């Protein structure tokens, strides 16, 4: 049990312990004080880079957790940083919320689940922590006791359950008689599984719900904004990444060529990218726009995944690109959410100008402006496109334009919006730290050094610059056009909800009809079998017959008949 192992265990157990401790009245104050710092062990474990592996035979079907490969480390960095920033931000932001304790319980539990699923090294414990995160997050989404939050919570729960069940089916079919499987063997198992296509489909859809794949994304623009700002940051930063982590862990990238699945991912990815932009631009609330921006960004990741699935040779490159892209997106998006939170409530004067400036920096970074870590992420994606022909590159650039459009939309909404000026001090520090970390990503990208030179060479700077400029230009041109359109957040969700309501009405109607039919049948049977009137006549008939039998004469006759029958029977 090396120091790293202890750190890994602490990373999961500490937030969980604090979450539970808050429930106990006597420990509540101490636990609430400690709550914001529960993500520290994970942060330290992420930074120190040492490998660790802890195996607990007793837990579930034999749980193993630890940091063993680069994917785990990158996701650990991402998750720890986002949760730390969110918790630090929430320390002041939630200070006066009456339901503070409940928020911290659910935040700690969700953090523990999120960190747990990153560190999990076997299928059963991965699913365990994944579920803990999913159901914990409901508490964050439905935290604010308003009608929208309750609706958002309901939508989130339904989609989350759908995702859970898809994954349960996928894991059960995948694992089969082996009951449990180390994660590093999972891709090989998926490749060799007799039901490979079914399992891959279930995995894509199951994790797609969390990662906001097209059509499955409908809960995201409704749930993320409904949560309090720190929770939104965590949701869109760390939890979306969990979906991508699921794909990276289970899909047989580089093991077997799945052209069909690859094409679907590619198409879905770009569809999500452009659809996200088209709907996001029309939104009124900056947080909803950011949510749609996440859908769009994840579209790129899905596309990259599609490339890896289609041609196994590009897998290592694609994985590296996805890793860096997701890492960058998590930090940038979290910073943006926290930034908008501050910008909208910062008092006028220098604080507001500073907030807007910070917002501008992270917006540019996300849009992939030259010399920003966003650009670096875009470059790693472009490299992937090298052998896929010009179309892929063009699509990426178009995507960049789209991102810029969304960012401009966010900035304009933030600038125009006159939110209630916060009387309380604003949590500047965690936001600025996160922003710095995002920018610093350039200096020490955990993946590959040589990309850095590429960033500064003129060709890539130009290719990064023109989409951003074009985006800004289009934004100003189309300002008036956008004001007229008003697509409700969650777009397709409204359709789904109406269909869902109609379906539920049908199902409960059918069930109630079934119950009525069953009772009617039972009543009919009861009438048929024991009709009181018939029972009465039966009763009278039988007692009259009985009375007749008890007389002398009938008994004599019966006796005679019996004697004769007996004699005849044994002659």
């Amino acid at each position: 049990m090396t120091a790293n192992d202890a750190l890994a265990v602490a990373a999961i157990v500490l937030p969980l312990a604090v979450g539970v401790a808050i429930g106990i009245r006597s420990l509540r104050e101490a636990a609430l004080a400690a709550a914001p710092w529960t993500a520290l062990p994970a942060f330290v474990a992420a930074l120190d880079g040492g490998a660790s592996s802890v195996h607990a035979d007793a837990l579930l079907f034999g749980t193993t957790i630890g940091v063993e490969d680069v994917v785990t480390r990158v996701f650990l960095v991402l998750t720890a940083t986002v949760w730390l920033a969110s918790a630090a931000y929430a320390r002041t932001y939630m200070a006066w919320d009456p339901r503070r304790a409940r928020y911290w319980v659910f935040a700690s539990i969700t953090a523990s689940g999120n960190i747990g699923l990153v560190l999990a090294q076997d299928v059963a414990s991965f699913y365990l922590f994944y579920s803990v995160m999913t159901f914990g997050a409901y508490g964050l989404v439905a935290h604010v006791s308003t009608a929208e939050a309750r609706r958002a919570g309901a939508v989130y729960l339904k989609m989350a359950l759908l995702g859970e069940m898809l994954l349960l089916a996928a894991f059960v079919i995948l694992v089969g008689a082996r009951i449990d499987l180390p994660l590093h063997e999972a891709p090989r198992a998926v490749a060799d599984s007799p039901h490979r296509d079914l399992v891959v489909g279930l995995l894509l859809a199951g994790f797609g719900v969390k990662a906001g794949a097209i059509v499955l994304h409908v809960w995201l623009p409704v749930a993320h904004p409904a949560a309090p700002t720190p929770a939104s940051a965590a949701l869109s930063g760390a939890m979306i990444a969990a979906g991508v982590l699921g794909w990276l862990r289970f899909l047989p990238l580089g093991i077997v060529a799945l052209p069909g699945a690859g094409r679907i991912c590619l198409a879905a990815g770009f569809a999500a990218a452009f659809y996200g932009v088209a709907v996001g631009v029309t939104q009124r609330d900056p947080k909803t726009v950011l949510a749609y921006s996440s859908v769009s960004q994840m579209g790129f990741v899905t596309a990259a995944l599609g490339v890896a699935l289609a041609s196994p040779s590009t897998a290592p490159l694609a994985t590296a690109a996805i890793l860096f892209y997701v890492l960058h997106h998590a930090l940038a998006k979290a910073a943006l959410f926290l930034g908008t939170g501050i910008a909208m409530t910062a008092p006028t004067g220098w604080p507001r100008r500073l907030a807007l400036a910070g917002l501008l920096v992270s917006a540019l970074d996300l849009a992939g402006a030259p010399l920003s870590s966003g650009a670096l992420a875009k470059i790693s994606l472009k490299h992937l496109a090298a052998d896929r022909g010009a179309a892929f590159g063009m699509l990426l650039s178009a995507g960049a334009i789209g991102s810029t459009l969304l960012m401009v939309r966010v900035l304009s909404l933030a600038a125009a919006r006159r939110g209630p000026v916060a009387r309380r001090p604003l949590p500047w520090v965690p936001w600025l730290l996160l922003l710095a970390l995002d920018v610093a990503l350039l200096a020490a990208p955990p993946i590959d050094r040589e990309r850095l030179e590429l960033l500064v060479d003129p060709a890539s700077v130009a290719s990064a610059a023109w989409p951003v400029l074009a985006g800004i230009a289009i934004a100003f041109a189309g300002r008036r056009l956008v004001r007229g359109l008003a697509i409700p957040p969650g777009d397709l969700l409204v359709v789904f909800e109406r269909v869902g309501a109609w379906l539920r009405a049908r199902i409960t109607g059918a069930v109630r009809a079934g119950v009525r039919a069953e009772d009617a049948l039972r009543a009919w049977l009861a009438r048929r079998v024991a009709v009181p009137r018939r029972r009465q006549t039966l009763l009278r008939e039988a007692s009259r017959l009985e009375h007749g039998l008890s007389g002398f004469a009938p008994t004599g006759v019966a006796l005679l008949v019996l004697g004769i029958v007996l004699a005849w029977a044994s002659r």
Partner: protein
Amino acid sequence: MTLDALLPLAVVLTSLLPGIAIFWLAERDTRLRTTLNLSAAIAKLALVVVIGRGVLAGEIFETRLPFVPGADLVLRADSLSLLFVSLSAVLWLVTTVYAVGYLEGSPHRSRFFGFFSISVASTMGVALAGNLLTFFVFYETLTLSTYPLVVHRGTPEAVRAGDLYLRYTLSGGVLLLTGTAILYAAAGSIEFTAGGVLGELAGRRGLLIAAFALLIAGLGVKAALIPLHTWLPVAMVAPAPVSALLHAVAVVKAGAFGITRVIYDVYGIRLADRLGVTSVLAVVAAATILYGSLKALAQDDLKRRLAYSTVSQVSFIVLGVTVVGKLLTIGGIAHLVHQGLMKITLFFCAGNLAEELGIHGVRELRGAGRRMPLTMIAFTLASLGMIGIPPLAGFVTKWYLGAGAVEVGSSWVIAVLIASSLLNAAYLLPIVRDAWFGEPSAPWPARKGRFEVGLWLLLPTIVTAAASVGVGLFAATKLSPLAMAALIAEREIHP
């Protein structure tokens, strides 16, 4: 009669004798009655531990009493019976504590605890029965001893529920008796032996199928297979401890346990499969799973919704046991314990809510989480377990059932598992959501004592909730029900 031979009999007597003694206690000496009850429960637990250690080491304890020409009364403690005995022994101790608290100051408590102990003794008899006739004897005494508990409240509605209960269970008993008599007439004494005893009768398909149908119909009444389940929701009119231990655990499990015995130790899974009866039963079980969940969706009363949930969940055991497959068997048998723990927690919570806040309807639970946090945490854990969310008990068994289904290639079982999980979520999660995130229409009545509800009621709820989490989380340990089920499957089902 060595000492070992007396142990199974002692297990039955430790609840039968106190039960009879309690009848003669006057109403007012509660202290004596409670100590008698609790000491009997603890004594039984100790006995079960002693037997448990022996059985795990491979010994078989058997009490054989001369009964009828051609058949003895046999009580045998093998691994399968040990599982059910230990579940019942633990839950009897917990439910006795709960009942003492729940029935504080209500009339006829001596009568209640007398019949309560006798019905547990019958459950022990059912679990330990070594042959089909002994099983039938205790199966019927279970019916007789649970009837007074169903009608305990004495209201006309309770007596009507009792009538329905009797109509179903007595007819079930007659069917079971017919099946037993046919088999005894055809094959002499039917001792429960791994792999089944009806080998030489294989030729007479008609007789075997008829006997199987009669046996399963008789057992199906208590295992609440459709359409024989109607008595269970109606019997919810009984006091909470009765619904908790008996209708969620003892009585219902006696039916499922009986079906397991008949399929594995009378017919043998291979013969049953060759006869094609197991596939029919699997379909009925699957239909019950879905039907129970759908009906639960339509119930507004909390206890009736839990009752239909029991109807659905018990059929998991039947499904696991009837579809041929080692993992499925393990999943089915382990579910016998897991479902028992989760369901008893839910009924304890329902009892607490009814007793403390007078909540009976599902919609009255808004905001109950703030007023009774510990009860609602237990309810949430048990509900999530029923849905099959890791690391709780329900997940472990659903995982094994799924894995077993994949192993034998019957994918429709997975579809049933997923559908039932979604339906469970549909009728349990709204309750949990209202409890934690709803706003109560009127402020809750203040707490009477230091705790949210009497300690006698709160402790059992917490213990069973913790057990249903522990059983799931530590499923891989040697002493967990899952390990026991694996031992059973290996030692008894596929020797």
